[in-house]
């Protein structure tokens, strides 16, 4: 309504009213009627004289329509929104000078109206603009108003890589987030650490929130080597991922926020004409070449070294020849690496449809994904689908429904460690003199000394064993939103996560773990059902009349319950190799079931004051309770406070033109880590220790009636700078994360009958810097270069140990005050004595003397850590007209990696196993300087036991992702009646630079940098088409 009209209308109505009054005389009636006519004509005249219609269309810089964009006459409240095809029609007064057109995530633009009746406007996406909306805990926030440290990874970055799960894709994209891919098994779990290691004994993984549900994440399987709940989510269905890093962002998640929170939101659909998208991608997976130091020996070399070591042990050459002849004569030279690895294929097909109008929007998708690993017998097949619908029933009431059913099947041989049926283990442990095939072409299953007397033929195992997991999951959400008032909204959400894993594991009767038992079959059923209910009120108000001071508040209540149900069955002794289900087996071994539940209940709230968008103060508070905590500490309080100063909005800053946005922010808050065992605090008496066919019970749960969550107090100071209108953006954060009440299985005297008790006794801190640059160095009409760079430095230090302990041994690490959690604590290798070829170790940390006696060498803090000193990503995208080329590098420096299986694969301590090629460097003549000692058959000098000899530098840079995209021209697209068409080729992990040339394997291993004979990392090359219509 125009401003002038209401006044006229009021007057007209007043006149009309008086006309009806019985007190009016006729003449007066006539006069008033004429006045009314004049009024009306004036009004109408005003309308006719003052308004004109402006039509137009709003698109983005790629020519796509932007529906629901706001079109306002500048300086007035007259406005409309664009339709689904981006078009609008608005009636503007004659005095209107320009239109202001804006849309979420696109910023705004002013268009002059002088003399025009139609305008077309192209808005550019504001991915780095401070008006961008980011998802935070329990709501959304404008980036400009944010006072916390968080990073958003948009959907288009998540669609771009041929990886199975979104947590793999985050590597290198977020400063402070370390994501370790340790296994090339498709569907493998990924280890993520945000701002360093968060705990000794509990999980350091962040909390995952998927469409508002705090899901059970990670590897929920019980028989399969590794699975990942996030591998059930098709990355193509993801709208955005928000990584919340500091306490201001995560304290609203209370007792579960200490390790950071990753919020994943799936696509909800956009109003407008229904858009279809079809994507097809196929490709190959291989593994990178083994580093030369890790290539296993060939048969001739192996036999020669065997004989040499036998002679060195004091035997005659003839005896050595006889002993070696037991294993082969060199005619059989099997390259196990080639037999066990393969070129795997990979394909995915995704179809999606989204659309809607101003009342209903939807997003529906279906996807098929199949990936064969680069190792035989291992693959993942996934069928996934997403249905998200939002409907606005009335101005006040809207509701949305989301449902994501997924089915996947993972075939995974025992894929880590020294399990004899791990094909990767077999590459190293099997002798090259063993034959994989018999002369007639069948698989060799002989168990003689020369063949598979203790190890297994991996080809036979893969062909005849079954290791499969069927995972069926449903994630769902129903949400109702009611606008009680314009500025008060009530939202009620019910979310669920259902995960069902059916694992089957069969060891065949002829060779392998099932041989002795004449076949072993395991069937495990695992079911998790989690529901998450929240009821939340959101309130917004302007505290002052001129809207300078605004106030937002959120308060809510949340209840979560997770119930796990497990059935396990094992039976042995199968009558025939062709029937593999346990009903046919004759000897039941295990038949058991059990369950495990946990609950959380919390009240949470958030408040935010903003003065002119310049000064912002935020606070949050959550009171969290859980069944995992002992009754003495059932509830905890988790407050946080943060503030931001948008310096660029100050008057004194208006002169500084080249800095378009500058913000300083600081935060402090308290969070917790609640990943305790569900019943860990309870002192229990357990069953199942059966004897002679009768049930047995034992006091096996030491419990702790004081057990509570671990607490994290984090301080963060950061700044966000934007230069040259968004051409260059910098974000810098300094943080200090103090972790207390660390749960620690601190060692008891074993005479107690327990080795450890878990208690909240330790403390640790992480401090560091994060630095992110996003820039567009070149932007011309046809050519754009976008780059992103991030680097993170983290220093971890143990600051408190249980009373009475000065250090706690943790495998190859030792927790001690002042040292890094992952600092290797080992004996120091001092090389090989040139005179005798004996191994040497330094006696102590002073390195002043050496000894040939392993027991006499002390373990010391080596100063070498498994955690990197710096890591990050470097991403570039070059776009020229319709072609774009993107590179993503991931780099990691400063850590050390340990070969944990070195004992068996070096020297001749275990003479019957395969050996690394580095064995050829062994000492043979006095005076020779080398790092490999004299080979002695069955030596007992501990030369291959743990020491710094097997620590390698873990530095590397990897080309994680490279993508070349060609978008078909607009004319071709129009001709084919499509909305978009592009072709692309991608490669992942194509190139790696490893800095230590003595390392026998890829340096990317577990977070604790200890190798475990995992599947090799995948090198994938794929090509695909995306069609939109």
């Amino acid at each position: 309504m125009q401003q002038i009209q209401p006044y006229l209308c009021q007057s007209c109505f007043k006149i009309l009213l008086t006309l009806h009054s019985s007190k009016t005389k006729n003449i007066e009636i006539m006069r008033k009627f004429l006045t009314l006519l004049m009024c009306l004509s004036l009004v109408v005249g005003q309308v006719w004289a003052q308004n004109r219609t402006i039509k137009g269309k709003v698109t983005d810089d790629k020519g796509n329509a932007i529906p629901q964009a706001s079109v306002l006459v500048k300086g007035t409240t007259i406005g409309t929104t664009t339709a689904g095809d981006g078009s609008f029609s608005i009636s503007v007064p004659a005095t209107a000078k320009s239109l202001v057109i804006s849309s979420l995530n696109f910023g705004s633009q002013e268009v002059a109206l002088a003399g025009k009746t139609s305008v077309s406007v192209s808005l550019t996406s504001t991915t780095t603009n401070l008006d961008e909306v980011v998802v935070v805990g329990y709501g959304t926030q404008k980036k400009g108003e944010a006072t916390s440290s968080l990073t958003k990874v948009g959907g288009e970055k998540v669609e771009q890589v041929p990886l199975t799960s979104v947590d793999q894709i985050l590597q290198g994209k977020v400063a402070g987030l370390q994501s370790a891919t340790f296994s090339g098994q498709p569907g493998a779990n990924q280890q993520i650490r945000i701002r360093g290691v968060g705990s000794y004994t509990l999980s350091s993984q962040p909390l995952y929130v998927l469409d508002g549900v705090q899901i059970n994440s990670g590897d929920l399987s019980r028989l399969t080597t590794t699975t990942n709940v996030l591998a059930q989510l098709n990355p193509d269905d993801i709208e955005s991922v928000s990584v919340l890093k500091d306490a201001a962002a995560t304290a609203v998640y209370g007792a579960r926020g200490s390790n950071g929170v990753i919020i994943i939101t799936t696509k909800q659909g956009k109003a407008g004409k229904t858009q279809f998208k079809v994507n097809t991608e196929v490709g190959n997976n291989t593994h990178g070449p083994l580093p030369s130091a890790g290539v296993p020996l060939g048969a001739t070399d192996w036999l020669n070294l065997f004989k040499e070591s036998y002679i060195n042990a004091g035997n005659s050459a003839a005896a050595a020849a006889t002993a070696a002849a037991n294993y082969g004569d060199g005619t059989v030279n099997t390259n196990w690496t080639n037999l066990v690895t393969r070129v795997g294929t990979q394909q995915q097909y995704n179809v999606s449809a989204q659309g809607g109008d101003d009342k209903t929007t939807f997003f529906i998708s279906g996807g098929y994904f199949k990936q064969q690993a680069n190792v035989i017998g291992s693959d993942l097949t996934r069928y996934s689908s997403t249905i998200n619908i939002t409907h606005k029933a009335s101005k006040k009431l809207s509701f949305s429904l989301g449902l994501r059913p997924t089915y996947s099947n993972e075939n995974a041989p025992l894929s880590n460690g020294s399990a004899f049926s791990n094909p990767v283990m077999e590459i190293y442990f099997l002798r090259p003199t063993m034959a994989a095939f018999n002369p007639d072409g069948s698989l060799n299953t002989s168990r003689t000394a020369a063949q598979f007397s203790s190890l297994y033929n991996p080809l036979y195992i893969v062909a005849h064993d079954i290791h499969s997991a069927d995972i069926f999951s449903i994630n769902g959400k129903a949400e109702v939103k009611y606008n009680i008032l314009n500025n008060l909204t009530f939202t009620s959400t019910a979310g669920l996560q259902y995960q069902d894993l059916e694992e089957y594991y069969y060891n065949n009767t002829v060779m392998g773990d099932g041989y002795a038992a004449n076949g072993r079959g395991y069937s495990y059923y695992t079911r998790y059902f989690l529901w998450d209910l929240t009821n939340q009120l959101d309130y917004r108000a302007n505290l002052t009349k001129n809207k300078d001071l605004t106030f937002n508040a959120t308060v809510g209540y949340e209840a979560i319950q997770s119930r796990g149900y497990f059935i396990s069955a094992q039976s042995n002794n199968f009558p025939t190799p062709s029937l593999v289900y346990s009903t046919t087996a004759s000897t039941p071994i295990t038949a058991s079931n059990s369950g495990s539940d946990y609950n959380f209940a919390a009240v949470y709230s958030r408040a935010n004051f903003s003065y002119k968008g310049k000064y912002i103060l935020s606070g949050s508070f959550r009171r969290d309770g859980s069944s995992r905590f002992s009754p003495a500490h059932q509830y905890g309080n988790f407050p946080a406070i943060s503030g931001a100063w948008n310096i660029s909005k100050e008057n004194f800053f208006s002169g500084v033109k080249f800095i378009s946005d500058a913000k300083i922010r600081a935060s402090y808050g308290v969070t917790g880590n609640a990943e305790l065992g569900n019943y860990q605090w309870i002192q229990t008496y357990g069953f199942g220790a059966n004897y002679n066919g009768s049930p047995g019970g034992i006091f096996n749960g030491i419990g702790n009636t004081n057990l509570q969550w671990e607490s994290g107090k984090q301080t963060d100071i950061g700044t966000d700078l934007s230069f040259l209108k968004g051409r260059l953006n910098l974000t810098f954060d300094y943080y200090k994360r103090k972790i207390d009440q660390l749960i620690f299985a601190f060692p008891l005297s074993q005479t107690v009958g327990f080795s450890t008790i878990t208690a909240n006794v330790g403390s640790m801190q992480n401090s560091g810097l994060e630095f992110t640059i996003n820039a567009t160095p070149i932007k011309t009409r046809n050519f754009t270069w976008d780059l992103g760079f991030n680097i993170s430095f983290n220093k971890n230090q143990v600051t408190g140990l249980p009373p009475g302990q000065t250090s706690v041994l943790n495998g190859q690490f030792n927790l001690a005050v002042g040292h890094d959690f992952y600092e290797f604590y080992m004996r120091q290798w001092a090389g090989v004595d040139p005179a005798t070829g004996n191994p040497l170790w330094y006696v102590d940390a002073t390195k002043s003397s050496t000894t040939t006696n392993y027991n006499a060498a002390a373990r010391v803090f080596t100063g070498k850590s498994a955690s990197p000193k710096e890591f990050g990503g470097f991403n570039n995208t070059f776009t020229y007209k319709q072609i774009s080329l993107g590179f993503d590098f991931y780099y990691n420096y400063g850590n050390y990696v340990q070969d944990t299986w070195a004992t068996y694969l070096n020297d001749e301590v275990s003479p019957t196993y395969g050996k690394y090629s580095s064995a050829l460097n062994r000492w043979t003549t006095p005076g020779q300087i080398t790092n490999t000692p004299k080979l002695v058959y069955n030596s007992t000098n501990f030369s291959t036991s743990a020491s710094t000899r097997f620590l390698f530098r873990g530095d590397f840079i990897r080309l994680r992702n490279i993508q070349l995209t060609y978008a078909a021209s607009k004319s071709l697209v129009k001709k084919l009646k499509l909305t978009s068409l592009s072709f692309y080729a991608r490669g992942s992990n194509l190139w790696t630079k490893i800095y230590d040339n003595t390392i026998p394997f890829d340096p990317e291993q577990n977070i604790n940098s200890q190798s475990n004979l995992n599947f090799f990392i995948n090198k994938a090359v794929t090509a695909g088409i995306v069609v939109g219509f």
Partner: protein
Amino acid sequence: MKSRFKIYFFVATVFLLASCKKSFLTDNPYTAVTLPNAILSESDMVVALNGMYASLRNTDLFGRTLPVKGDVMADNAYVTTANSGRYLTLNQYNFNNADAYAAAIWANAYVSIKYANTIINNTTVPASANVAQYKGEALAVRALMHFELCRNFGTAYTIDPTKPGVPIVTTYNQNALPARNTIKDVYAQVITDLTAAYNQMTLYRGTGYFSKYAARALQARVYQNMGDWTDAQTAALDVINNSGWVLLSGTAYVNPTGSLGSGPSSSTYNPGGYWAGNAQSSTKNETLFEVISDPVNNNGFDQIGMIYLQLGGGYGDILGLQSLYNLYSPTDVRIGLTPNAGAGYRSGQTGTNTILCYKYSNASTLGFNYQTKVIRLADIILIAAESYYNAGDYTNANKYLNMVAQKRDLSFAGWSDTGPQVLADILVERQKELAYEGSRFWDLVRLQKSWTKITNPAVATTISVAPGNIGLVFPIPVTELAANPNMVQNPGY
């Protein structure tokens, strides 16, 4: 006005809807009971006893390591060339203070003691004859474990009983940081427990459970290790005369069928007789106490039979020595338990005869559910013989010696020596009778003998073992020393 009311209404609804009962945060485990409610009745106590016995079956206690140590570290057995990596440190006398076997024995023995104490110290079940029996069994197990701990981690009693033994634990205390009690005190506690057990046990529940005379038999063994021959004799004779246990004779003991074949895969060998049985026995033959493995509850591939079994997926890592085999006369039925398969039978073991152990397996069944014999009547009879020897009564010494020898070799004329030769005869008979049962090492240690440990007959290396060799005593695990400042390590580690 209306809108404010709406606000209040909705806020109230939110919190009403939202509040859950306090019991929402209480979750009980599905498969465990809280400790105070664990043992409330006699049947609960039986369940607790079963759990205690099951812990003895742990691979690193009687499940495999304790019996294996007694033969591999002595002059009975060795670890073959091609092996699965097990027991190498025992075979080579090559321990460091983090040795896995020592650490596992230490930790698991005290776990069993904890379970025994839970029963012994229970006050909620009212007293009765059954309860006395059950508590007696727990006392016997506690004694057994303290005895094993003390002789594994301390020097022999006969050398110096004032040397450090192991901590005595009779109650549960999670804050305990005990020092080592002297060997003398530990043995005193063991004797006290066994005496109490003997006095209060009245039932016999089968060979898988302690009974009155099993406790007395163990007590005889303890006295033997102490060198207390008077008490040893009393205890041994009590068992021999009053327990009702008998020895089996000749082929009832061992009666082999089948053949070893040319290689393990063609073996059909079955020792037959008493040793082919793999279920618990209720008859009082031979065994006073054994640790039971049943078809469902066993150590799988880590069962004791599998370390000896050559075929069928067994590791077959441990073989007997020729010197042991040569002790048996051809008419001794016991040779059927340790047959000679000839040279080259075992892959990777070159140039020597392959002396197998068939006490825990046979060709037709997997070695999963064979029992570990802890105390046998034959052992007690030989203790009686040794006690008579130490009293100078050679006649009785030979009488008891022949009680065993002539049941095993029906054509044997009998031992009839006098003087120190009798002890040599007794030791030979013990070695023959108790081969592969973990006994030989302790005979050598308590008598302070020296011997040559053959690590592998195919290779020339041997180890001369004499009293004072640090390998005769396990190291206290480094994790115990780190956690317990009152603990003192053994010399040499």
